[in-house]
């Protein structure tokens, strides 16, 4: 009898647990479908993908950026919402044995250059100034739409940087650098003007974690390929092309993203597990304290894809007027159009030379002090040196 009692109690416990579990699952499912509109709060997606290094041996950085570009396009973000900045042209580089291709796998399995790559900033246009201008929106009025980041307060933005970096800086074009403080200030300016709803920042450089240390604006999640003091390593060289094709972190990131499709429900916790130390040699890091939602509830497609919210149109307006017949524009035909002067040559020829800011000539200070010392010694003689020293 005791045994029976015991078993019945156990059974009833299990039953209660199962019922609770089913109930919870049902609740969660219900909330998922009903609350989908409000869970993420964004209506459009943008991506800013930047490769900051030039020269042929930095092939892997361009391949990194192009593979993220490819994944992001495949998951739905259109070209009009992607700002792609490549500091050098690897596909058409003179040293590329396979022109018009950029490979990401050894044995040339995957050509990430593809057929419809739209590079918005190329070559020498990729500078710290242009990058910050794109982020903050302070572009000259003549900038075309494709080169602008026209995000609003309901945009989720993915920012991916790759190149050579150090503790607190990222090198651009081998000649200048952007510091983590400048980047944090740029993000703060974006927040002040509500240019993003949520921001995902991924950086694949040496000591990448130092770049997200200084962020202080809300709703930013950051991932880096290596901690401060560690180097981010490259993955595999290809003997035919002769350079390393990809960096480890982005290689495993690409592998992870290839499994994601637009309806996928993977969340950010899976992204944090990409490339553990055994595969990457460096330790990837992430920062979520500024992010308001729980990373477990953030879908990968919230940033990498572009799943639009949709509402059914319930009502329509009943229109009864017949269509007006427009008068045939004979005047329309008459108007002849002509191109505006592409190069205002007359203006250029007769332009006065631009006033440059005056700078003192080089070596001025040195010359000045030499002069003063010479005059002094001429007047007073060498022996008066002791008055000074």
């Amino acid at each position: 009898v005791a045994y029976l009692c015991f078993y019945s109690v156990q059974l009833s416990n299990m039953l209660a647990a199962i019922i609770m579990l089913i109930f919870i699952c049902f609740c969660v499912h219900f909330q998922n479908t009903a609350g989908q509109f409000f869970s993420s709060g964004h209506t459009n997606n943008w991506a800013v993908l930047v490769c900051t290094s030039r020269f042929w041996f930095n092939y892997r950085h361009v391949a990194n950026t192009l593979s993220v570009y490819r994944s992001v396009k495949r998951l739905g973000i259109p070209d009009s919402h992607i700002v792609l900045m490549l500091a050098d042209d690897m596909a058409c580089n003179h040293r590329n044995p396979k022109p018009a291709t950029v490979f990401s796998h050894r044995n040339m399995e995957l050509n990430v250059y593809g057929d419809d790559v739209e590079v918005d900033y190329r070559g020498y246009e990729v500078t710290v100034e242009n990058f910050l201008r794109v982020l903050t929106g302070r572009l000259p009025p003549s900038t075309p739409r494709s080169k602008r980041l026209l995000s609003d307060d309901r945009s989720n933005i993915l920012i991916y940087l790759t190149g050579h970096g150090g503790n607190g800086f990222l090198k651009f074009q081998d000649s200048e650098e952007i510091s983590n403080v400048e980047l944090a200030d740029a993000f703060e300016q974006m927040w002040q003007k509500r240019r993003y709803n949520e921001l995902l920042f991924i950086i694949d450089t040496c000591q990448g974690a130092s770049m997200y240390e200084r962020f202080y604006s809300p709703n930013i999640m950051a991932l880096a390929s290596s901690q401060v003091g560690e180097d981010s390593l490259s993955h595999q060289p290809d003997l035919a092309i002769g350079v390393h094709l990809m960096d480890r972190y982005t290689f495993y990131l690409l592998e992870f993203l290839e499994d994601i499709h637009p309806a996928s429900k993977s969340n950010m916790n899976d992204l944090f597990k990409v490339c553990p130390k055994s595969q990457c040699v460096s330790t990837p890091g992430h920062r979520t304290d500024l992010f308001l939602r729980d990373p477990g509830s953030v879908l990968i497609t919230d940033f990498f894809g572009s799943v639009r919210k949709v509402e059914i149109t319930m009502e329509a307006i009943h229109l009864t007027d017949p269509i007006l017949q427009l008068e045939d524009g004979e005047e329309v035909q008459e108007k002849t159009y002509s191109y505006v002067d592409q190069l205002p040559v007359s203006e250029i020829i007769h332009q006065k030379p631009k006033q440059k800011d005056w700078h003192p000539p080089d070596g001025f200070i040195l010359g000045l002090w030499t002069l003063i010392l010479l005059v002094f010694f001429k007047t007073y003689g060498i022996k008066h040196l002791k008055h000074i020293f």
Partner: protein
Amino acid sequence: MLMKGNKIRGQLAALSIAAVVIIVGVPLWWRTTETYRAWLPVSQIKQLAKLQLQLSADVEVVFARGTVTPEQQKKVPLTQTQEEEHAVDGDTMLRYRFETRYRTATIMEEDALNKPTAAGADESLHTLSESPCGSLVFYVIPELSLLLPKDTDVYIGQRRTALLRVSSQVGVGRTLEQLLAQLEPRIKQVLQVMSFSHTDVSAVLSDRVRFNPDSKEGIADSMRAFKSSPGYEITFSLLNPDPTSHQLHWDIEGAVQTYIQPLLTKLSPVANFSIDSQTLYYSVLGVKPRFDSSCDAYTLNADSLAHVINPVEARLGSNAASSNPVLNFLLYVPDAHHSPLKIQDHRKQEVPSNAFHSPRWGGIMVYNVNGFYEPEAELPVDISINMAEVMGVFLAQLRLLLGVQSSPPPPGFLVAPRGSSGLADWELDRLMWSRCVENIATATTTITSLAQLLDQISNIVINDNIAEQVSSAVNSLQLAVAELEAGNLKYALQLSKEAILASEKAFFDPSLLHLLYFPDDQKFAIYIPLFLPMCVPILLSLIKMASEARQKRREKLAKKD
């Protein structure tokens, strides 16, 4: 003696060099290395940061014959003011003020109210007098009036008028105060629908007040409608995936001129619009529709609609040269093998309009043409699209995307069908109120954050044109707030638009890029090689002079002793 003269000359030389360096050199260096910062009206900007808006509307309540007794009629011309205050958050406070004027109807208005239908009455009332922007007129009609159908108590017209039916439940001997007290909740209800309400206005401030969990509809509305912008680009696209079967003709120019342009002309105080259209061939939806035998049609269910837009958007292209937001309206004619194509909502019911829209993007309508031709007809078939039907749907979507509220009216209310422009006057007023508040709030936030930014980073150069823009923005903002308080909606909206343009221009000026971050050790590294070789001899000679003077004084003292 000669030594002493030389020594004095040496001391004078050292002193004069030190004097020149300190008096002339240091100020010169300071002036040449400082950044040019034009003056900004910082105190006024700080005042604006505390946003205190007052929205006032004038309401006129007209009593028709039969609603008030003759003795009450004599007392009727009176004015009441209702004020409501809401503090949205620490920095933002909203005050709503309705000034209600009661009067009796004139003879001409009585004639108009005797028309057989409510719509007719509305029209003739409009011809009598036109209410200014933002104000409303309510006509109180007796209970037994035949103007309104049995179960409706309120008729909301196309312009700025409404007809209220008052119930004479209270006995004949009721006083004017009782009548007014009875009317008040009804008037308030109508004002919630026809004029501004706290939920709408605070939904618009979602920028400023981030996490407002008041109402989910408010959040959905604020997410759906485009943000206030000086202009919008509208693109109509016809997608024909099967040109070999269907040759489609649509008179888009005529349709836009007849159906869409009146709405856009009416909305011209709010924003500018530019329209273009295109036809795309061989463009497919990204989702494969499934054949549903129960309704004998191919269906797209609501969950797959979200994935339809992206593949299409990549092909759409954009004609826009400005940075204005783009609204896309797509008309998809399914190919012959997948016709008819119906959209199903979450409950597997057919959607009558066969269309869906995406917040802040645009709308898509599926137009089935399989009924226009016999199955054995010779392909390609010439099909002329019924633009009235199509534009009816697009117009409804356009209204939603621009922020015209869509919530259903309370029970007992009858809303007149929209006129030829698709927008009632009072809806336009509501849109203008919310746009005005949104513009003022956004401009204020922009200006205050710009001032804060310029204050924090001392390296940014502030040119004169930026200072000018900021001053003009501050001016316009102050005037806009004043006009809003006075109830002049049109001027307030215009001024708020000027304010937002000026503030955006100032904030996004390309010259305001703070590019150079100077950490302190870099500053020292630059200046030390310049100044140290100069300062060391001067300092040492001054020290030498001071020690000699001290020694002399000590000797003097010793001598004295």
